[in-house]
């Protein structure tokens, strides 16, 4: 899932993201709602240190008037902890969130616990999730926030097999969004004998449905592409649909995402030629788009570079990343200074993914420099938190020098001006 799409997340996207996060890609082919148990891996000390550092930065946000920003950033840290499988850290942080996002985070923690097979306290967390949204149901609240929490809780209820409650909650939220999660989740729960039926459904929706269902079906296809990669016939059928649809009627960014994700799947299954072919299509699509803001282009460059690396073309990946940095440097005046880190972080992550550790660390240092061009504590803290989470989630251990700088920032450089 590329960063641009993460930015577009809304209620519908929330569902899609929940199911498209990749965490379930290799889940068992069970036909019931119960998620397969996925044990958590131990979190390394430096990762915990980074997340705690990020959370300390959220404490700098004054509640008034920054409560929305503070809580949004806290949810970012919770999400990072959950990506590492650390429900303990996530819970510790969740309890300190001061607005409706506490509910969202309780639901996210519950979901992770179910995925790890630890269901003992899940119902309690779901109750707390729903209890946290009362303030948003008032006359001046925003209903999408309530919906988001209900949607998250509904997903977990469904994972627990409580379909009745899931449907009860789903009835009060956006039904299209609910359909998204079910459609994409079919890639995990589909029975082998229903494959052809699912394919017919993809065709029918792509032919006549509105765009959101079409995209959900295509994302399902990418996941099925992974699941059935060893099955030549089925793989070809899926690839044909992904490429056909991706080349015809979807926005460039989504097309690049679908093709790049498919390329990664092919590469991970050892089919380098196919991966390179798909990457070529994605690259051509990017070249055809007339205008790119670096903030939106570089994350796609990073995704393509990672796919190239997985396909064995590490030199090309390296070239792509270097070109991306050049593009940034040449065009950064078009990016508001506080958002420049958003462009560069995926490149730093990609450098790490291809094994260029020093380049990655150097780029993180550059990101910190760029963030501090803005004189205000809020954007600095936001960027700092994003950087800490990025390092932790991607298992990038900071050098002593970078660690010292990070500590210095959180200790001394985020206190003002707020």
């Amino acid at each position: 899932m590329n960063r641009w799409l993460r930015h577009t997340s809304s209620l519908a996207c929330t569902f899609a993201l929940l199911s498209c996060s990749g965490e379930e890609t290799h889940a068992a082919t069970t036909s019931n709602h119960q998620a397969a148990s996925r044990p958590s891996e131990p979190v390394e000390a430096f990762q915990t240190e980074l997340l705690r550092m990020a959370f300390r930065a959220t404490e700098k946000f004054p509640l008034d008037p920054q409560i929305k920003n503070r809580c949004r950033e806290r949810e970012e840290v919770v999400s990072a902890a959950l990506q590492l499988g650390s429900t303990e850290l996530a819970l510790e942080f969740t309890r300190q969130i001061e607005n409706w996002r506490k509910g969202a985070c309780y639901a996210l923690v519950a979901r992770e616990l179910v995925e790890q097979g630890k269901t003992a306290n899940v119902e309690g967390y779901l109750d707390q999730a729903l209890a946290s949204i009362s303030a948003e149901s008032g006359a001046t609240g925003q209903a999408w926030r309530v919906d988001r929490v209900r949607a998250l809780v509904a997903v977990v209820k469904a994972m627990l097999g409580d379909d009745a409650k899931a449907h009860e909650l789903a009835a009060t939220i956006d039904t299209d969004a609910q359909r998204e999660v079910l459609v994409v989740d079919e890639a995990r729960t589909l029975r082998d004998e229903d494959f052809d039926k699912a394919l017919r459904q993809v065709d029918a929706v792509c032919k006549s449905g509105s765009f959101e269902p079409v995209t959900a079906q295509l994302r399902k296809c990418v996941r099925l592409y992974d699941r059935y990669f060893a099955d030549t016939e089925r793989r070809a059928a899926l690839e044909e649909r992904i490429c056909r649809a991706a080349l015809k009627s979807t926005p460039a960014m989504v097309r690049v995402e679908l093709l790049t994700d498919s390329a990664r799947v092919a590469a991970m299954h050892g089919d380098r030629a196919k991966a390179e072919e798909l990457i070529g299509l994605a690259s051509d699509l990017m070249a055809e788009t007339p205008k790119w803001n670096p903030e939106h282009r570089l994350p796609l460059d990073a995704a393509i570079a990672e796919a190239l690396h997985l396909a064995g073309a590490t030199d090309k990946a390296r070239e792509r990343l270097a070109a991306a940095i050049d593009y940034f440097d040449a065009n950064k005046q078009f990016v508001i200074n506080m958002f420049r880190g958003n462009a560069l972080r995926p490149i730093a992550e990609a450098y790490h993914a291809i094994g260029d550790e020093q380049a990655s660390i150097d780029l993180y240092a550059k990101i910190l420099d760029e963030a501090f061009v803005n004189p205000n504590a809020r954007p600095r803290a936001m960027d700092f938190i994003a950087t800490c989470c990025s390092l932790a989630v991607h298992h990038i251990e900071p050098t002593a020098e970078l660690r010292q700088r990070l500590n210095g920032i959180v200790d001394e450089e985020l206190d003002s001006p707020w």
Partner: protein
Amino acid sequence: MLTNTILRAAALGSAVAAAMGTANAQKINVTADITVPTTWFSTNTYDLRRDIAVQAGATLTIQAGTVVCTSAPVTNPVDPEFGLDENRSLRVERGAQIFVKGRAEAPVIMTSAADVATWTPDAGHPTGGNPKTGTWREAADEWGNLTLMGRGFISENAEAGNVPTCNANNEAPMEGLVESFPGDPSVRYGGGDDNDDSGSISYLSLRYGGRVEDPNVELNGLSLGGIGRETDIHHVEIMNNLDDGVEIWGGTVNLKYMSIWNIGDDSLDIDQGWRGTHQFGLIVQGYSIDTSQGGGVGDNAIETDGAEDSDWQPVTTGRVYNYTVIGQPIDGDGLTTWRDNARIQYRNCIFMDGGEALVKFDNIDGDGAHGYGFNGTLSWPATWTTAYNAVPAHANDCPVGTYTAQTDGNLAEIRNSVFFRNLNGSAYTEADARGVRNAGNLNVTIPGFDDADSPVCALTRGPLVSRGGKSMLPVTFLDPRPKNEALTSTEGADYVINCFSDARYRGGFIPEQSWLHFWTASEAYGFTPTSQFVDLGKACPGTNGDLHCSGSGDQSVPMGATIKLSNAIPGAAAFFVGTSLLEDVLPGFELFGCKIGPLPIFGPAIPVVAGQATWTWGNLPSGGTYYYQWGQIDPGAPAGVSFSNTICGRVP
């Protein structure tokens, strides 16, 4: 006992207020952009002496009760601080945030010095006048406006390099702003983050604006470009603006409690792919100055463009619920105007006194766009018959999650609304062609023309005048609360629960009281009735849904005020919660997840009869502000107890 306790609290509050005082009040000339976090205090007044930008990363907080009072532009270059500059606006750049922290009893007012000059003298207020007073003038163009620029998706086709697909790279310069260099991001809006957060705005009154130096450009009262749904905007008034009242370009921002009066162009204008919701609004068409229609004299009440060109994405797809729209009966333009694939669901609205059509099919906006049905998009008729989630796929379509505002029904519809005194011969021609008045849409056309038949409690117009060559009947008094067919909405609960506050009535107002009280120019100028009471919002629902608290009468008279509870469950007594005025000092607390006012004092149990209970009292000292709320033990409520909305009562 209760009264004594509250009176003691009132006295303490008064002392605190006096201590905070206005002895150090200053008039601040704002001459430089805001680059670091800044607070504007209610003890000062602020005069915008040039275009002021809240720059990316910075935050502007405006305290409740603050008046931004901008003086007239200097007409020769002798301004000692900045020289000649007619541009006097406030803009919030992408990445910046604004927090307008007005309250009903202490709104933030952005207006002109000429407006303040009409306020009743009040030496205790930093402006020297009482902001709850004033006289309406035929005027606008006296200062600029408030502009917010965000990072949500937009569909703008004039900018080189923008593409017709839903694309995060699509941006546009905000009208009235000048780039420092080609592509200057500081004056642009748009991007790829529909969840963007430009801050929070509450209880803000914008008056007499619209001015910019460029003679070819007029400014809207409130301009919202690419604003994301994380931005909170509610209780905003625009009175007498030169151009549109509110204009929205793309993004996903949601608005509640908007009052838009005497606007010189469209009262509410939506374009470039907005995908959000409006609920609770009032539009009163009129004029601000005697120029032309569209530049001082009201044009359309609500004008919606889908995209800058009709096959671009995203396309405006949203909902407008519970609006009271009062047109100009002779020369007003459309009550709802539709262009370039706009898709709006109007529900629970009042449309009355329109001068043209209820549904005005403009199709194109005159800037070279191609209208409905262009390049494989839905035709105009099909837009009204196509389900919200059954849009045929199109080459330019948006990614998943772009369209979430509509959750049922058809893309374009007007349902469960009331139509009254729309007397143009073609008032319903297009609406009928689209089936708006088919029985299934649950709309009501009131057959009579008399005020007694009206869906609003009272409406008075002044004598006929000619403005900009148009015949205008200005509204001089309005009690917008519902009457007759507007009192109830017949639609089921499915959609009102989904995404909106649970409003079972038509138009923007509940029967008991008006959310215009205390904070609006319309009340200060005498256009809307005064009341000592204002609704501050909902608390905890019970078995019957929301308990409702309303106030009436005079708190200064012994037993002169009545605090009423309705929608209570039978068989359980209600208890009355009185609170005092110390909100600034003690911001209240939460009980069972409900916001309870400061210093709650639980009164004796009061019997509930037919779902109602009343508490009468009074003899309160002048100048105090009091908060009231009802509670009831309710085993069916999630917390075992339910609380009503809180109301605020100010003793004159």
